[in-house]
């Protein structure tokens, strides 16, 4: 499976490889430049493992000034740069290319400041998502966005992709929880955008940096919002006889004005895969499962649950199972958050990430099943139903090129369906290389031209993560 193209490596860069490596070695402290081919292998791909390219070198700077020095150098000599956090991108956002220097932020992993009076944390970009919540947990706070990869993924990567997670229904995604960044522009200029104030003056540059997929600059520090942790939280399992009923139940809960912290959906294949892995106690005799998490005091959770149970009853809910202990609750979430990994144990898969309007959930689930069946493949659905962010996992055999091509084709059809019903190609994983060539299905030429013009305002020579997001054809000269 190698249909998605990359830009042709610049021969002017490849031919100067030794010189570039020598210069970067000089620019950085000892041990901060990886350039032996064997040592470059761990950087050749990310979590979108079907594609891989060995980079020219990997810089692992320890300070913002070192990031700036590397960018300034690469800018001067026209060397492409691919920023990298933990390399957990599902869309190929961190996959390098042969003529690129990877700038990895893994050595910048210090928490710089925790300010409870203002409810902010300022951290270096290489700090993991979970480490922020862990650092403030004892004081009763947490950082809200929680991608499934939160144990590994970094805040810098989260900002690059505007990551979401299961609990975004109530608390929003990265962009809604980000107050400021230290940003290094492609020419090495260091900017401070935003800070501890809730709003910054001028154009909302922070807003476009977040989700910029490493094309606009490299974030080295971030100030994020902390939230007081609720008194209690309880996931409850709702089992249904059909995906349609579960989907309709989600739409009705939201329509009734009830916003739980999370509403996660699993169909039967996903339930079986996750249960076999996590032994979470999921009911096995249902076709679809919702994990609904409510939070607050005991009284609040009871009140909200009563309303949700009443609505589920109108949709023929078959099983309602409340977690009885913190251990049970943790297991329920472990099963859900390990869905991708657990699926990977039984088959190769590609994971789609389209978002659809809630009212379209049942129709898109049906459409997804039809598309996958047409290609003779299997699908497991496990996703954030409350905000319509779907994750069909298309199962295939990566050793069979025909099977792989079918999976990619089915995935593309599903994403087009998402767009056609009023949704979008990607809700939280990013475009990367994976969805790049579908961008024209969602956007007109004028829409894309405007985005590319903004991109060029940050990086006129298209050196930063150049093979990503925008179709390779039709780019400005």
């Amino acid at each position, binding site marked *: 499976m190698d249909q998605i193209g990359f830009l042709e490596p610049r021969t002017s860069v490849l031919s100067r490889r030794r010189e570039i490596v020598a210069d970067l070695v000089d620019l950085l402290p000892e041990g901060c430049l990886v350039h032996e081919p064997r040592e470059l292998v761990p950087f050749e791909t990310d979590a979108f493992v079907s594609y891989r390219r060995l980079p020219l070198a990997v810089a692992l700077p320890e300070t913002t000034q070192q990031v700036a020095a590397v960018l300034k150098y690469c800018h001067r000599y026209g060397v492409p740069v691919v920023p990298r956090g933990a390399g957990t991108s599902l869309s190929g956002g961190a996959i390098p290319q042969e003529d690129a220097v990877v700038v990895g932020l893994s050595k910048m992993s210090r928490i710089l400041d925790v300010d409870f009076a203002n409810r902010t944390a300022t951290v270096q970009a290489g700090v993991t998502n979970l480490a922020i919540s862990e650092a403030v947990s004892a004081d009763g706070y947490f950082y809200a966005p929680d991608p499934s990869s939160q144990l590994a993924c970094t805040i810098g990567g989260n900002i690059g992709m505007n990551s979401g997670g299961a609990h975004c229904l109530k608390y929003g995604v990265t962009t809604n929880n980000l107050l400021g960044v230290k940003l290094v522009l492609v020419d090495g200029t260091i900017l401070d955008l935003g800070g501890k104030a809730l709003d910054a003056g001028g*154009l909302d540059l922070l807003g*476009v940096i977040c989700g910029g997929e490493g094309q606009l600059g490299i974030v080295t520090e971030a100030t994020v919002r902390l939230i007081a942790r609720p008194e209690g939280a309880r996931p409850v399992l709702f089992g249904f006889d059909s995906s349609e009923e579960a989907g309709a139940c989600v739409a009705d809960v939201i329509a009734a004005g009830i916003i739980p912290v999370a509403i996660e959906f699993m169909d039967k294949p996903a339930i079986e895969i996750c249960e076999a892995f996590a032994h979470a106690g999921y009911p096995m005799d249902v076709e679809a499962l919702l994990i609904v998490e409510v939070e607050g005091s005991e009284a609040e959770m009871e009140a909200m649950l009563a309303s949700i149970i009443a609505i589920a009853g109108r949709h023929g809910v078959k099983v309602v199972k409340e977690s009885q202990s913190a251990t049970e609750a943790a297991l329920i979430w472990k099963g859900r958050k390990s869905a991708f990994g657990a699926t990977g144990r039984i088959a190769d898969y590609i994971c789609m990430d389209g978002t659809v309007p809630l009212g379209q959930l049942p129709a898109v689930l049906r459409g997804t099943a039809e598309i996958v069946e047409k290609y003779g493949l299997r699908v497991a659905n496990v996703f954030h139903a409350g905000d319509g962010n779907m994750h069909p996992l298309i199962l295939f055999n990566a050793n069979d090129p025909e099977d792989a091509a079918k999976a990619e084709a089915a995935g593309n059809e599903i994403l087009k369906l998402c767009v056609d019903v009023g949704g979008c190609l990607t809700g939280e994983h990013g475009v990367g290389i994976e969805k790049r060539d579908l961008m024209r299905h969602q956007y007109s030429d004028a829409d894309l031209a*405007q985005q590319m013009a903004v991109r060029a305002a940050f990086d006129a020579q298209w050196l930063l993560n150049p093979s990503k997001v925008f179709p390779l054809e039709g780019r400005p000269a």
Partner: protein
Amino acid sequence: MTPIHEPLSEDAASRLVQVASLSKSPFVIRGGGTRSLHGTPDGADVLSARGLNGIVAYNPAEMTMTARAGTPLEVVEAALAEKRQMLAFEPNDLRGVLGSSGIPTIGGVFATNASGPRRLTAGAARDSLLGVRFVNGKGEIVKAGGRVMKNVTGLDLVKLLAGSHGSLALLTEVTFRLLPVPETSATIVVSDLNDAEAAAAMATAMSLPVEVSGAAHLPESVRGRFIGGALPPGAATVLRLEGLSASVTVRSEKLVSAMGRFGAVSRLEAEGTKRLWREIRDAAPYADGTPRPLWRVSVAPIAGQQLVAALRLETGVDAFYDWQGGLVWLRMESDPEAALLRRYVKAVGGGHATLLRARPEVLAATQAFQPQTEAILALQSRVKASFDPSGLFKSPMLGWEG
């Protein structure tokens, strides 16, 4: 009189801008014209969005609405009220403090990122904005974002347009998310705290798992001008709770017991709460019919009272605080004292200050928006040029620059 162009469709707006871009005739973009006292620079016509009127789609079950940019805010809010939904960020109405007339539009709300008390916990206007359609400076019709809650497909131009004060493009249509109107609300009032004590009390309240949805401090100088003087004597530190009745009752008890150590605590019920927070939102005490300089300052929450305390030593100011202290409504006695204010904003950790009101000649002579560093200015101009290469759209936020 400045000529006003009021296209009645997106296509008409696009043609108008295309023609103007050939002759390089500049525009100042305007919605209802209620949020700014800045006039128009010489030679610029007004490009009004008011002709782009009407709700395009309202899907209560999906909690989203799409409306043309010139749709009056009151029309949007009336439609939402029928379904017991609302804009989470509580857009303010500045007509009182600015003495402006006209009808606020939904496009104007987003173009100025006009956010009220709930911004503290529910995000700003920009956080509710899901998608936009706009006409850029070349006259091209462009869409960005969409109508779903989670969308990371391409660059987030929606955020750039929100709060751009007409500097990048003419918004023609906006799609935004909604929230259900809470079943009930209540306000816990802690009386007679000084500004520093109030900052500590509000920080404590926000650290508790009681979901305070608004935290403001109304010093004694303004307290009597809220809800007809019905708040207890002395300064009032006010904390709003919203949600299901049973839940508000429980949380209210917790909050009352936690606030007891700061001062005398009382409780305002739903009706009073509604009125109080509307008046906080609109800076009602400063709707005083005067042109005395009025600033809206955003700093770190704990820094708000430090800023005011520092200013008080040097000049006559009156102030009250929203956003846990992080939004300061600041009225100067006579001179706007821009240099002094900006120096202290920087000294307390940074933020931004916008001069909303002053005598016309003072406003014209003062940099009303927060000055930016050279590097950010340079980047801003490049971004501006990427939407509007010939500098057609003039905005006070970018200093009327092209």
